[in-house]
């Protein structure tokens, strides 16, 4: 009996102590982590729509959308977050949408775990620049070769077709929801 009580009390004490330490570390770390995430989103917004002076977060329906405004408070465009499964894990990226809801402003990758040297090239300018002024109608498509790319097509990364296809699929699904919500909103 004495042994059992000793075992229980040691376990309880160690757990309580560990909880105390962790709560202290969390208190120090959490503001920084939240700040880092906010910074990453803010950086993406200003990169996607360089004319943005200030932005406003709005939740319309079940979609989270950042409305970006120019200096004279005219609407410059919309930015929203898209997320989905890539080749090896979740890909999270920010999407810039023209205010006419017909073309993209571009994409900024926030988080991914694609293969280095292949799928990880989605963060390079060469791949991302393709999304600037890309037509979103009828849907965005990907092509395997660079010749005769249409206005709504991007070229897939060589050796990482799955990653490129995932990005296009995630984009199309999210765009459909966001565009329909925004159309009703106006």
């Amino acid at each position: 009996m004495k042994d059992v009580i000793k075992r229980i009390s040691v376990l309880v004490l160690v757990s309580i102590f560990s909880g105390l330490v962790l709560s202290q570390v969390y208190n120090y770390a959490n503001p920084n982590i939240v700040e880092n995430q906010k910074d990453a989103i803010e950086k993406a917004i200003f990169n996607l729509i360089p004319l943005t002076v200030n932005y406003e977060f709005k939740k319309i329906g079940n979609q989270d959308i950042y409305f970006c405004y120019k200096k004279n408070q005219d609407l410059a465009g919309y930015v929203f977050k898209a997320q989905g499964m890539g080749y090896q894990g979740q890909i999270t990226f920010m999407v810039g949408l023209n205010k006419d809801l017909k073309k993209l402003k571009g994409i900024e990758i926030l988080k991914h775990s694609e293969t280095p040297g292949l799928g990880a090239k989605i963060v390079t300018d060469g791949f991302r620049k393709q999304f600037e002024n890309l037509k979103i109608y009828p849907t965005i498509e990907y092509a395997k070769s660079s010749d005769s790319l249409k206005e709504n097509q991007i070229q897939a990364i060589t050796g990482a077709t799955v990653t490129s296809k995932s990005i296009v699929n995630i984009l199309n699904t999210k765009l459909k929801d966001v565009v329909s919500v925004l159309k009703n909103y106006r």
Partner: protein
Amino acid sequence: MSDESSLRFEFIKGIWHENPVLRQLLGMCPTLAVTTTALNGFTMGVATSFVLFSSSIVVSLLRKVIPQQIRIPVYTIIIATFVTIADLFLAAEFPELSKALGPYVPLIVVNCIILGRQEIFSSKNPVYKSVVDALGMGSGFILTLVILGSVREILGTGSFFNIILFDNFQKWVIMALPAGAFISLGFFVALVNFVSKKQATGYK
């Protein structure tokens, strides 16, 4: 053996005779998964060594208080605490690195090297010895991960610590993929076995 030379032995053994990855074949999951680049390998090695170092001190301090029957759960709580600290710290101070390592930082908690050292060493030895043992094992782990990461990064992406080495380089794509991890680790273990066998016969 004098005290000093025994301490030196405890340190060196982690790097060579009992290198956690190459000789004990422990901690294979992070070794294979995060060594796509030298920097990732280094960060993973440092984070793991921090956890190993801190838990070794605590376990060694508490070794006379922890009842034999519940030692594993107690070690696990201690290790998990330090892993969470490392994870939060990386996310707060180095968001880029934390992003690159993804889920492998929380997975340090199940790294057999750490639990193994607590069970084999820290629970039976005084603090100063456990610290030296942890430092040795940690250095061995960091060194192995950095070498493996460098080989895979140079061959797989043509760069070293994110510095591009060659302009027109035909990348060995396979080295950046999991298969490349198995191939290079296999060669590495074979090399170390070969060298240590040579050493052993040399002593005769």
